[in-house]
């Protein structure tokens, strides 16, 4: 059962096409997995349509209509740019996992898996824009050292379970943390695949993990 959803404000910005590429990908993937947000975003689209198409626009004269109609009737049908992987699957070191439709459409953007450190793996997702978007794989018993971030960290659980100081999160949960919140995500029995977006490097805050701060750019590429 998904309990952590994007806010209605974020869904509204998403449906308006106002979010960055990275955040759009995160929200679209959550919506793939979340029937409740599918309903809400359909309602928002209807509302946006009513709002934007409400304006009393001047009717076009016949000449204006005919010119554009002629161009449309003589146009070729185009195919949308979709790279659909029929298997909807990607592999990591012998593991295979299914991807929600939006990620599957963008599977060709997923780079090679890299071992970060400890029980953490990362594959970059190249979608343009200033943020860093990665698939992060945490093996069972993995810990990301306690950290804060200068910007916003958004995380979506694609499969599995992880916990932090605030809660535990499962498939489909969408978590936004800003600079004021310290946390250290960890897995216990189960592993966890997440999609994560960062707009600034992590800053590690406790104990031995401060050793990582000179290298925190390694977590941000």
């Amino acid at each position, binding site marked *: 059962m998904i309990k952590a959803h994007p806010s209605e404000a974020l869904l509204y910005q998403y449906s308006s*096409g106002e979010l960055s*590429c990275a955040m759009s990908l995160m929200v679209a993937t959550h919506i793939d997995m979340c029937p409740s947000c599918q309903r809400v975003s359909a309602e928002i689209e209807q509302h946006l349509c009513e709002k934007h198409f409400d*304006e009393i626009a001047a009717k076009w004269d016949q000449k204006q*209509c005919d010119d554009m109609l002629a161009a449309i009737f003589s146009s070729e049908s185009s195919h*949308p740019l979709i790279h659909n992987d029929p298997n909807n699957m990607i592999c990591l070191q012998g593991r295979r996992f299914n991807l929600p439709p939006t990620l599957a459409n963008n599977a060709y*953007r997923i780079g090679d898996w890299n071992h970060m450190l400890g029980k953490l793996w990362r594959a970059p997702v190249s*979608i343009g824009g200033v943020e860093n978007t990665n698939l992060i794989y945490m*093996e069972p018993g993995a810990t990301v050292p306690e950290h804060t971030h200068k910007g916003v960290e958004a995380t979506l659980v694609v499969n599995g379970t992880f916990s932090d100081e605030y809660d535990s999160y499962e498939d489909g949960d969408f978590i936004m943390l800003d600079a004021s919140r310290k946390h250290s995500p960890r897995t216990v029995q189960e592993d966890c695949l997440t999609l994560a977006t960062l707009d600034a490097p992590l800053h590690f805050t406790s104990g031995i993990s401060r050793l990582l701060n000179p*290298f925190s750019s390694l977590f941000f590429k």
Partner: protein
Amino acid sequence: METVSGHASQRKVMKRAQQDTAERAAELLATVAEKRSRAAFSELFSHFAPKLQAYGTRQFGNEQTAMDLVQETMTNVWHKAHLFKPDRGSPSTWIFTIARNIRFDLLRKNKRRKDEISADELWPILSEQNDNLDDDYALDHDVLMQEIKHYYHQLPDAQRIVVEKIYVEGKSQQEVSDSLNIPLGTVKSRTRLALKKLKELIVEHD
């Protein structure tokens, strides 16, 4: 930011007229899809083109781009009318989402990086493919890994102690020099060597 619920009452008043328009537009879309009827499309066009133009003008503040948006949107309606699914929403919402997608791409067109995501990839409303959703995104197998401490413990003791005092206990290099009774220059060089070694260890496993 307007909320969806805030518009509920206003929506009720508008509902009746909208339903009539929606039914008519759905019939026209079906006729376009089945018979490639130019007459049916022209009726849709004269209803939606001015609305799209108003939306485009407000979004771009530019008449030419607004007209490009109208033409691209209605071209898709002409070719993709068969992809409209009446059970998923109204015809005008469907047409609005096509325009929303085109706006998303038009806004990025000039400064677009070649790897940047496109609206079709986020909202594949014009994709011919059926969306067969598989809800299980499960993984299998397992692999052995090590923790940060593992790297840390590979440092020589002399370096590890200095780095621990600086980065874990938060001491200054001078304080470490005083407490260990070693020269400040030695503290600095041990720190530098330790960080270099740690970086090598981490990158090696990357």
